[in-house]
């Protein structure tokens, strides 16, 4: 990534995104203020097959349904929502670990834009349309940190092989240069160079998570999707890993998509938050706006369910509504069956994600009632 990018503030978004205009030109910004990533109407549907010998398709799960947002360089965007609402699917589809059903994923190339094999438009490529071959050189720039530090590392590989493997696959370097880089990266993530010969089982959960981080950052990516990267860790190790992710972001100019269900963690680390419900983004705003004035009834529900460590700040535990089933969504707003503000229109028309005030987007027919 260009040196200029790393000097960008980590602060909140400088330019308005256009989540409601799918056709907006994602390359519209200028200089370093244009988004690193512009996602437009991204969909991922999984077929639901019948049981038995001839697996006929009997339906589909709309795991990601029209996801639209911009991501600025150096920014951290949180992705939160109920289990099964499509967070992992969205992350994986953006990185083309899953084939998108439709939609566009514009990724800014910077100086590499010169590569004649890539269909570049104003410095951006649409990841969703590239062939496998075209994707190979881009893979190194986008990485994912997985939720489960225990099962995402190959138990039969040493730390050295795990961390160094991507460099070998992409033929970046080898020999002593590779060894040096591995040592550097291990040190950076708070492990020791002598750990390189150990196998994953010899590490604690927090240390294993660091191995995964080292592997993901080895290629010097610009975009990292952290999928529940700290959820399995106890609070102290979790704090260490969060500090590490923030230090590395400042140092390497990283841009994060941060998927998590711990809202305190999300509040701490994210500049903006996208709240998902049943495959769609229902609210998108700066972190503090989301927490102080949620503009979607689902966001309200979500925030009211966060348990506070202070026993004298009691919470509501009386949740009765049924969880949305993305394989069997109601007509209209997917949240309608659980929504206290639901009226007739909600049961028929699906609300789209609209700009409700500066830098704020909400997909609710009645979001004006929530101020």
């Amino acid at each position: 990534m260009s040196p200029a990018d790393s000097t960008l503030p980590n602060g909140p978004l400088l330019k308005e995104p256009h989540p409601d205009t799918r056709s907006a030109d994602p390359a519209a910004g200028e200089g370093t203020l244009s988004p690193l990533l512009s996602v437009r109407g991204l969909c991922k549907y999984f077929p639901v097959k019948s049981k038995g010998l001839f697996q006929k398709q009997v339906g589909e799960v709309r795991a990601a349904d029209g996801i639209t947002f911009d991501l600025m360089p150096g920014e951290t965007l949180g992705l939160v929502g109920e289990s099964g609402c499509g967070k992992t699917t969205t992350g994986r589809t953006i990185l083309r670990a899953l084939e998108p059903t439709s939609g566009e994923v514009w990724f800014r190339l910077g100086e590499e834009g010169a590569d004649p094999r890539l269909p570049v438009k104003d410095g951006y490529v649409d990841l969703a349309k590239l062939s496998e071959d075209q994707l190979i050189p881009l893979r190194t720039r986008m990485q994912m940190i997985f939720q489960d530090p225990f099962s995402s590392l190959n138990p039969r590989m040493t730390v050295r092989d795990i961390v160094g493997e991507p460099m070998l696959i992409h033929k970046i370097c080898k020999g002593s240069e590779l060894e040096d880089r591995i040592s550097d990266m291990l040190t950076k993530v708070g492990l020791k160079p002598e750990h390189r010969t150990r196998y994953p089982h010899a590490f604690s959960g927090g240390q294993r998570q660091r191995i995964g981080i080292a592997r993901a950052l080895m290629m010097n990516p610009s975009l990292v999707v952290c999928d529940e990267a700290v959820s399995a860790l106890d609070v102290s190790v979790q704090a260490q890993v969060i500090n590490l992710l923030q230090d590395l972001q400042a140092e390497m100019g990283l841009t994060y998509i941060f998927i998590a269900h711990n809202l305190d963690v999300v509040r701490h680390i994210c500049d903006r938050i996208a709240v998902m419900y049943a495959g769609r983004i229902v609210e998108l705003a700066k972190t503090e706006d989301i927490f102080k004035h949620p503009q979607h009834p689902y966001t309200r529900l979500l925030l009211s369910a966060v348990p506070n460590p202070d026993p004298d700040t009691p919470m509501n535990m009386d949740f009765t509504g049924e969880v949305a089933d993305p394989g069997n969504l109601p007509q209209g707003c997917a949240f309608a069956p659980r929504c206290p503000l639901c009226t007739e229109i909600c049961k028929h028309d699906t609300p789209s994600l609209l700009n409700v005030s500066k830098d704020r987007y909400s997909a609710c027919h009645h979001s004006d009632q929530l101020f």
Partner: protein
Amino acid sequence: MPLSLQSEPHSDPHAALPGGGRPEREPNALEVEDLRVYFDTEEGEIRAVDGVSFHMRRGRILALVGESGCGKSVTSYSILRLIQSPGRIQGGSIRFYPKPADGGAETAPIDIASLTEKDERLFDLRGGKISMIFQEPMTALSPVHTVGNQIIEAIRLHQDLDKQQARDKAVEMLGKVGIPGPEKRIDQYPFEMSGGMRQRVVIAMALVCNPEILIADEPTTALDVTIQAQIMGLIKRLQSEMNTSTLLITHDLGVVGQLADDVAVMYLGRIVEQGNVRELMKNPRHPYTLMLLKSLPGMSAGKARLSSIKGSVPSLRELPAGCPFHPRCPFAVKGRCDVGDRPKLEKVSETRGVACIRWNEITDGDIAAIDKEPTR
């Protein structure tokens, strides 16, 4: 509060709390005394649990917290005698006091630690009077049976119901733990469900027999906050309606704050602090508890760096001398904290125990001072 710190044996379960505000306190449902669980490994003996004592009172929720690997799961497995080779209960007692029948007399306690592996009482207790929500749902579910059949079997093992009654009860329970369309889901296999749904099936299975003691090992870690709140509400309801005692193991201190009555903090195989939830969360006395609370993202303002406990948990095989927390403790004093035996859990008030020789010396000023030091 699980009062007796180490010494006092259980005498009269209805004994008045001396000096405590209430005239009576709830009788104990379970008393763990000096529990030691060791593992023989190639690298030597691992003392995963080494002298743990706590009491669970009837109808109260006791949270067990502490960093990964400190022995929480091993402690809870011991209560159901599920420790397998190379592990063994090396010593201590686990006395279970069955709830007397209405108007009936107190029955004699059962020392679970001293039962033989084949004792019928053990099979009776497991999944019946004492049940457990396991940390990893897949270990508790059989992949080759539908979730319904597994729940129905659990019900019929401990209750006198016919197949249809048991099935109705299973459907009702699945609905209660927030599974949509329970009458359809009941005939599914575990692999057809999402991780969060499987976790709820395991919870349903643990609750369906109205246990007297519920052991919940990270029951909501895999769940999102709204489902988590639903499960928390369920555990609370069980507490108020059935007077169930719960041992709640979790690393989410928000869940602890909202759900627990009492808290025990473990470090390296022992309890280092215990007290009721308010005093412990608001006024931690042991440096480890203090540092744990300080690591919470919600606790430090804004986007500042989170404070974390320096270093990592030492290996159980090379326990530091003196207080095993001293290499990581910002208040450790050379020559006092790093020598001699491990500090004992000292009873510092009617409801409070702390295992730190300096608990009384550390001032608010000392605590404020550590915030200024960088931690990593």
